[in-house]
């Protein structure tokens, strides 16, 4: 899996950041990450661990949610991003695909994709990129003229990812790309990630719940838990860690557990006294 090994150069560095929402809710309590150039880095962790928050802190979208980085710093190619707004960062090549799709509802699928090429580029290249995205996601081609608000959940997800690809970024922050996608599409998206990464050297930082797939495609990974990094290492190391295997991959000593059995091995709570 580690064939397209990343260079040693670090493109993105998060140093011990602390994030507070609404002046009172402390969410990240000192998170540090280094993302190697040209690598695929996975950010794993349970609900509310702070994965999305970390990504938003990096892309600058935090401010629009009344959150702020109160401590630590984020360096992109050695430059502090604190005073940059998201548009600046996109121009510098960092783009985020937000969790929960966020398509422009009233625009058609195609228009959505075109907004991805907002920052510059000539017509010919836009057309080429559009073609590329349609080739990745044939379903979008079929639905290109529909208003994005009326497409299915999975279609919106494809649309959001395609939109990001349109901007030809050097670093993509992907927040839960697999959410709501059919299994073969999940594989397909990760294949795309790998392909774009290998062919064009695009760096990926992806927050993912689907640990199984994520660790198959990522080079390195971090595990977050309630706002702190609790484990880091290469994908291999993580996969082999027994705790990770149990809690994040759903494997027990005897191989994959059945979901039907959860009741017997998890402490069962009675809710009718």
């Amino acid at each position: 899996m580690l064939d397209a090994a990343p260079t040693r150069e670090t493109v993105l560095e998060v140093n011990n950041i602390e994030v507070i929402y609404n002046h009172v809710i402390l969410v990240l309590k000192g998170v540090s990450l280094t993302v190697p150039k040209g690598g695929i880095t996975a950010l794993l962790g349970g609900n509310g661990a702070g994965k999305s928050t970390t990504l938003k802190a990096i892309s600058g979208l935090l401010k629009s949610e009344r959150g702020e980085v109160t401590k630590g710093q984020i360096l992109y190619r050695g430059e502090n991003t604190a005073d940059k707004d998201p548009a600046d960062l996109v121009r510098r090549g960092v783009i985020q695909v937000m969790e929960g799709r966020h398509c422009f509802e009233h625009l058609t699928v195609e228009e959505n994709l075109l907004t991805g090429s907002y920052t510059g580029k000539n017509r010919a290249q836009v057309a080429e990129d559009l073609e590329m995205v349609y080739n990745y996601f044939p379903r979008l081609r079929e639905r290109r003229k529909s208003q994005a608000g009326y497409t299915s959940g999975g279609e919106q997800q494809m649309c959001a990812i395609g939109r990001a690809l349109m901007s030809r970024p050097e670093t993509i922050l992907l927040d839960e790309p697999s959410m709501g996608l059919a299994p073969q599409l999940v594989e397909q998206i990760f294949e795309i990630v790998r392909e774009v990464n290998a062919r064009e050297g695009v760096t990926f930082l992806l927050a993912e719940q689907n640990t199984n797939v994520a660790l198959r495609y990522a080079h390195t990974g971090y595990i977050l838990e309630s706002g702190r990094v609790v484990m880091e290492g290469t994908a291999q190391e993580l996969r082999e860690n027994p705790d990770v295997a149990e809690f994040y991959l759903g494997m027990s000593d005897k191989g994959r557990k059945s979901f039907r059995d959860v009741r017997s091995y998890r402490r069962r709570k009675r809710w009718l006294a």
Partner: protein
Amino acid sequence: MSDTILYAMEVTVNGLMAGVLYALVALGFVLIFKASGIFNYAQGVMALFAALTLVGIQNGQIPFAHLINAMFGTQLHHFGWKVPAVLAILLTALVMVGLAILVERYVLKHLVNQEPIILFMATIGLAYFMEGFGDVMWGADIKKLDVGIPQGMSETVDQITYNLFGYGFFIDTLDIVAAVVAVILVVTLTLFSQYSKQGRALRAVADDHQAALSVGISLRFIWVLTWSIAGFVALVAGIMWGSKSGVQFSLSLIALKALPVLMLGGFTSIPGAIVGGLIIGVGEKLFEFFIGPMIGGATENWFAYVLALLFLVFRPQGLFGDRIIERV
């Protein structure tokens, strides 16, 4: 032809003209709504402010004279020069761009990603502020605005219609000028928003601030751009209405005439503004003219809204508005 029909025709034509004038104001609303999902309550005040500034510049008034006089006991009033109309219009347009920059910087920037009603409220604050500011800057007295647009009954129309029907229609020349200007504005703006990259970005921003940011659209640029254009539209509206009835506080209340137009046409549609304007203009004038006298008159205010309401019941997003997306 019977007199009634002739009168009806005359009223209709005049209604169309009035509608165009409403549309001019509505246009400013549409632009800003399209670009940010903000219902800009301050649009009327912007028209007043633009007109005040225009007259002030034309007459060489010293801005803030009253304040300065009150504070330092001086007696400043005028610079003592006159600025030609064209130059004054250009300068005013620049002032409106400056205003757009300030608004973005001190208001909008801090309210990214908020609910529409909050943004609406912020524009109300802005309206208060600008109303006070305009008065402090230029004084609250009534001012005459004259940039050389002809006014009064159009002889040509009178002649032509007299020859045709034996009854000369009344149309105000100013209205004809306004109609031409409005059509030019609508066509340009429609082309801009439909076919340019910025136009698309504009609609994207209105849908989802955060997502727009995430694809690298600079909200700052988009907002300064649209508020500048809206400021310019306000200036045009201010000139037309100001030439009609002088420049004073009530000018800002024309926003109320633009609201039904906006709702009928759809908040997001530039052509909607003009079509809505025409429907409302004709509708209310005909109603006031024929039904009004029977029920005591002064029906125009409410009739416009009732008319818009009737349309909305059948098309809840207005005639040309974007479909309201209802999904789970």
